[in-house]
């Protein structure tokens, strides 16, 4: 159960309008800026002792959140790390989203890094500030700092209980030097971190008051609907807008560009006084595109067939323990199999949208749902060829993202158009744009080889074959090199399996022009599918129960505990009725271990999913309920990835364009879900993505346990299973 929140209606909790409205934020050096303020209002102004913390003389506490919220709750969990060490109650704190300025450091919500990367720096920021406030108080009382303590935004004297509020101390504190190694609290001293907490921001999310990117309204703005080439990257040949300009509300059409990270493509924008007119205008455009051979190169089947060809040859080695091939050749009991995953789209329910205003003086203001204000600020400065000081970012809440809104193509489109018009322009993509234009999770082929001896899995080779994000998008992968990102994630160092005879991990880069990008859990969902289904197959070959077979090759205590907990919570050792079966999988991603067990029952020609239980060990965490929520969400997204269609190209055009032909899981298809968290004091791991990778293999393994049918290629139509 969750603790009751004493206040349930705190509309001012998040100031979505950002830093600008505060208008009081003063520069890095608080002392210098204080001098610039007129003496009569100085007392009321908040002082910035640290870029993330503002304390007003009236004891108002403001914390800057440097990690945008896409639903994972960073808007509260990140500031909580500061509040804990600063000794302030979250109830009395105002939270403001950072605006991309470099003083806030890295600000991208991604790679499940918000808690694990900021765990020390932000706690230190809070603790250092608290120590300065204590020092200021001890100075006023002329006692030693050790004779004081901080609690609930006040510093108290231990001897007589007298106190100063932080507001009364802030000016004096701001003149002190910042302690470099402040003392951090121990886990047992935490009042906020690790305790279940309600998310204050949810009040606005159940009343329709939360402001998402799509809800941005800037005075004088016009709307843009953008026609992209049906074949991504098609060259614009001609535009006929004669029917478009007849539509009431349409202002004009403008040739536009979509700037992806490594290339720029043509598009045509229809500008109108309202979105509906713009989108009608878009439909009335007659545009000719040059295919440029894209009808044969944008082809998922052609790409996958090249992956299969590559699977016949050796890849580039990431790691090898003993000579795998020679051991494999002489082994008596072995398997040699391939597993496929498809391209996938992110499809957040809020489509890509951005509002930009490039002004006459060349400066730009941006309001958008985005994952990385810091990156966006720099990238937009480069794109518009202006200095970073001329870029102002307002981060809007994201209506889901899953990696998609870290890609800035839609933001640059708004900037491009506003740069032409010099008025605010709001770009809204349709679902069609979202699904057809990519970028996608890469499809991957896993070629697996392994052998068993004495009832134990002793040899294992995972050969990953496909396109690389580092290579395609960032042009950072030489042809003779293995993708280090994928290598790290598939390494024995990460999955902890010990194969005593031989272990090999290798890679072949098969290129494609189908645009790819990170998608929730990045490579881990692709790697997990091959790895965990194959372990299951080897376990059966060894005549072992799949959970026991894993325990036999795992020494790592954390992995073992997660599996043992999964067994306990699912009554794993109790037989299921005839016609039902369980499948399990365990993966580690972003420093977090998650095991998943899916129970299925035969139904018609297929199976029905009964329940999913996941056990997560993410080390120390901020909010148990958020960890659960993220893991529940990962289960749903993982099932969708396993049983709903992947992206398919037909003659260069993405065959899907909306939720009717690119469906995602619905509530009536959702099995019962349970999530359990392992309690420990290990370093924090990522939570937003780690729950996803084990879901699909647990499902594939459950299908096998239930029906005897082994599915090796995703997606699986679970209503109609054939071997």
């Amino acid at each position, binding site marked *: 159960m969750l603790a009751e929140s004493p206040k*349930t209606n705190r509309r001012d909790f998040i100031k979505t309008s950002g830093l600008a409205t505060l208008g009081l934020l003063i520069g890095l050096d608080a002392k210098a800026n204080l001098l610039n303020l007129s003496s009569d209002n100085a007392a009321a102004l908040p002082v910035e002792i640290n870029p993330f913390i503002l304390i007003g003389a009236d004891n108002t506490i403001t914390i800057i959140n440097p990690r945008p919220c896409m639903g994972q709750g960073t808007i509260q969990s990140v500031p909580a790390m500061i509040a804990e060490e600063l000794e302030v109650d979250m109830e009395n704190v105002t939270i403001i989203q950072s605006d991309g300025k470099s003083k806030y450091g890295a600000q991208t919500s991604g790679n499940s890094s918000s808690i694990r990367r900021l765990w020390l720096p932000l706690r230190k920021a809070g603790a250092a500030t608290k120590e300065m406030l204590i020092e200021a108080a001890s100075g006023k009382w002329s006692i030693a700092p050790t004779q004081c303590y901080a609690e609930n935004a006040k510093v108290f004297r231990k001897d007589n209980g007298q106190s100063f509020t932080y507001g009364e101390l802030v000016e004096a504190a701001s003149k002190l030097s910042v302690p470099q190694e402040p003392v951090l609290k121990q886990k047992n001293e935490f009042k906020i971190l690790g305790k279940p907490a309600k998310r204050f921001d949810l009040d606005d999310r*159940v009343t329709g008051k939360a402001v998402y990117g*799509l809800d941005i309204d800037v005075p004088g703005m016009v709307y843009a609907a953008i026609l992209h080439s049906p074949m991504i990257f098609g060259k614009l040949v001609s535009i006929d807008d004669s029917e478009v300009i007849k539509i009431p509300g349409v202002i004009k059409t403008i040739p536009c560009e979509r700037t992806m990270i490594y290339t720029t493509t043509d598009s045509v924008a229809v500008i109108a006084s309202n979105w509906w007119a713009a989108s009608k205008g878009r439909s009335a455009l007659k545009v000719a595109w040059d295919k440029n051979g894209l009808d044969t190169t944008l082809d998922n089947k052609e790409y996958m067939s090249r992956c299969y060809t590559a699977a016949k040859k050796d890849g580039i080695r990431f790691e090898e323990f003993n000579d795998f091939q020679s051991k494999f050749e002489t082994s008596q009991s072995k398997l040699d199999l391939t597993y496929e995953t498809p391209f996938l789209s992110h499809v957040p329910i809020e489509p890509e949208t951005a509002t930009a205003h490039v002004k006459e003086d060349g400066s730009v203001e941006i309001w958008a749902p985005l994952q990385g204000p810091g990156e966006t600020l720099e990238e937009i400065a480069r794109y518009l060829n202006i200095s970073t000081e001329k870029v102002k970012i307002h981060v809007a809440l994201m209506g889901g993202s899953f990696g998609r809104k870290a890609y800035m193509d839609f933001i640059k489109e708004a900037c491009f158009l506003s740069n032409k018009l010099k008025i605010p322009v709001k770009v809204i993509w349709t679902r069609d744009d979202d699904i057809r234009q990519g970028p996608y999770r890469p499809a991957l082929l896993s070629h697996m080889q392994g052998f068993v001896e004495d009832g134990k899995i002793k040899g294992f080779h995972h050969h990953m074959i496909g396109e690389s994000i580092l290579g395609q998008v960032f042009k950072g992968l030489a042809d003779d090199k293995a993708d280090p990102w994928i290598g790290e994630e598939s390494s024995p160092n990460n999955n902890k399996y010990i194969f005593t005879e031989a272990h090999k991990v290798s890679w072949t880069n098969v290129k494609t022009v189908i645009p790819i990008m990170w998608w929730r859990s990045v490579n881990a969902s692709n790697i997990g599918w091959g790895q965990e289904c194959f372990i299951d197959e080897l376990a059966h070959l060894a005549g072992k129960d799949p959970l026991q077979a894993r325990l036999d090759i795992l020494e790592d205590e954390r992995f073992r505990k997660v599996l043992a907990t999964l067994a306990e919570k699912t009554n794993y050792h109790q037989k299921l009725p005839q016609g039902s079966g369980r499948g399990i999988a365990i993966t580690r991603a972003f420093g977090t271990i998650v095991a998943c067990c899916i129970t299925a029952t035969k139904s018609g020609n297929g199976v029905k999913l009964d329940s999913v239980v996941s056990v997560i060990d993410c080390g120390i965490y901020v909010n148990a309920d958020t960890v659960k*929520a993220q893991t529940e969400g990962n289960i749903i997204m993982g099932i969708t990835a396993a049983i709903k269609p992947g992206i398919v190209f037909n003659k260069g055009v993405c065959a899907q364009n909306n*939720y009717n032909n690119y469906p995602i899981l619905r509530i009536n298809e959702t099995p019962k879900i349970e999530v359990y968290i392992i309690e420990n004091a290990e370093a924090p791991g990522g939570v937003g993505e780690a729950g996803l990778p084990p879901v699909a293999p647990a499902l594939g393994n459950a299908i096998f346990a239930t029906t005897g049918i082994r599915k090796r290629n995703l997606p699986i139509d679970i209503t109609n299973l054939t071997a």
Partner: protein
Amino acid sequence: MPKYILTINKKQHRIEADSDVPLVWVLRDYVGLKGTKFGCGIASCGACTIHLNGNPVRSCQLKISTVPATAQITTIEGIGEQVLHNVQQAWLELQVPQCGYCQSGQIMSAVALLRKKPNPIDKDIDTAMAGNLCRCGTYERIRQAIYRAAKMEAEVVTRDK
């Protein structure tokens, strides 16, 4: 341009718009009620769900010209104006939203369901809520929150007896 009168959350609005503008854009861009969301435009996601005379409808499918002035339109802004609706309260108790973008639509569908079926069973929830997608994956909590809201309503009813 044609003029229309719409009754939204019990207030009358005079709107000048083309006859084919879908209600979702009328609400958002003409009336300024942005709690109703857009996700697909083809009645596939439910993000735009509102009530028309108490029945849940996808506002992306309703052209302004087809909505009579007498029709009662209710949006997310209109269901818990003074105090939160039980459904909203239950949503908070169970901490349902993640990004929350789909939740206006989810809540509108749930409110309509409970009005028709104060004691829903799993099957009723499946039927009433299957049209509302959630990419964040909050379905398990939505189901529990509907049961919670039903219980809250029942408690009020018994108390008032």
